[in-house]
């Protein structure tokens, strides 16, 4: 009878030790993971925000408007992201940008932005490099935009 009680007590103490060991290891792991996950998530969000449809539409339309600030000619090159491709179209002085992120968990949402200069309507698919120009030919200034790819990782 006494032997049984001793065995039970010893088993219970063993379980408590195991439990404490697992608890401490879990807490330490969680503390390490907290730092790693928050850093990784922040980087991911920053990258997505910088390359997002909204950001690129605003930047691109701003540069197209800024081209009007040059009296004669200007040449602006803009590469929003090397790893993301974009579908860009313009009509009626308004551009629409769609960032095509490869991870499926990032939602593809288009964004529109206005510009004030006289660019002709255009449409580009799967591009990530833009060249915005104001050119003067035969005494007449006009605006031109072309697009291409820096590196295809899309």
């Amino acid at each position: 009878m006494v032997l049984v009680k001793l065995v039970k007590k010893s088993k219970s103490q063993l379980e408590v030790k195991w439990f404490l060991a697992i608890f401490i290891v879990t807490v330490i792991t969680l503390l390490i993971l907290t730092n790693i996950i928050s850093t990784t998530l922040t980087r991911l969000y920053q990258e997505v925000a910088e390359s997002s449809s909204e950001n690129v539409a605003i930047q691109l339309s701003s540069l197209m408007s800024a081209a009007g600030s040059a009296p004669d000619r200007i040449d602006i090159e803009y590469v929003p992201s090397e790893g993301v491709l974009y579908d860009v179209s313009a009509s009626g002085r308004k551009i629409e940008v769609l960032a095509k992120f490869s991870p499926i968990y990032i939602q593809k949402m288009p964004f529109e932005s206005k510009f004030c200069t006289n660019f002709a309507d255009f449409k580009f698919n799967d591009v990530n490099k833009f060249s915005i120009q104001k050119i003067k030919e035969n005494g007449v200034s006009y605006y031109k935009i072309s697009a291409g790819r820096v590196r295809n990782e899309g």
Partner: protein
Amino acid sequence: MKGDITINVIMSGLFAIGVAAFAVYFLFKVFQEVQTLNFQTQTERDAIFLANALISHEKLIYEKDGIKYRGMLNASKLDDIFKKSYKGFNDTDNFKNVFDPSYWITQDKIDLGYTNTLSLILIIDLDDCNKDRCVAWGGIATNLNALELAVNNPLINFGKCLVQSFDVSRGHLEKTVGACAAGGGLGAVIGSVIPGIGTAIGAAIGCGVGVIATLWTPEEIGNCFMKNIPESIKMWVETDNPVSHKGVPINIIYDDGSIHKGRLIVSLLELV
């Protein structure tokens, strides 16, 4: 015994709850921290870009020997495009015409401007502006797209918002029926007193007023109004300042060669 609640089971349960609670807290904390609002004063930025493009535009700037002088506006060119006043912006008799659509600056005169936006452009000669005389030019440049204006009109969007926020719950319907009954009763009494209206018509009008009064709450109407009001007007209401009210510095050159300091001010009203 199997199935007994031991201290270990309780501890394990508490531990699991703690881990779950921590995970939820951690998730919310991370999401809150990284959620950056990319809200910008779009209208202000657009106005600055347009002002900068205007002070480089060949139809406004001074040009000599094929060289265009950015920021130096030719007074003669300004006379051709804008309404001119010698009493500054207080000259309401002259400047009220600026808002008349027949005086709007069309794209063939200045090919700059945002779609469906009224761009109020004001130019002031600071070296020739005192309490007796103040030389200024003003005009509204437009680039309107009728189809988009019709489809995305703030009034239509306001109506859509009201329809979407219409409450079809039983409680709201009961409230509406109650308002109809109360309004109808009151209308019937008033109608019976006023000759020529009668109880029935009075009750119908009272019921209608009661129903309309309870269709939407003031909060719902206010929410729809604020959601659909153009951003520039919202900014004006919230900050009490029109956009780019200080403008960009310019020089104005007259035919006699004199150069005056001035300012070009652009205020935008984005209609959709």
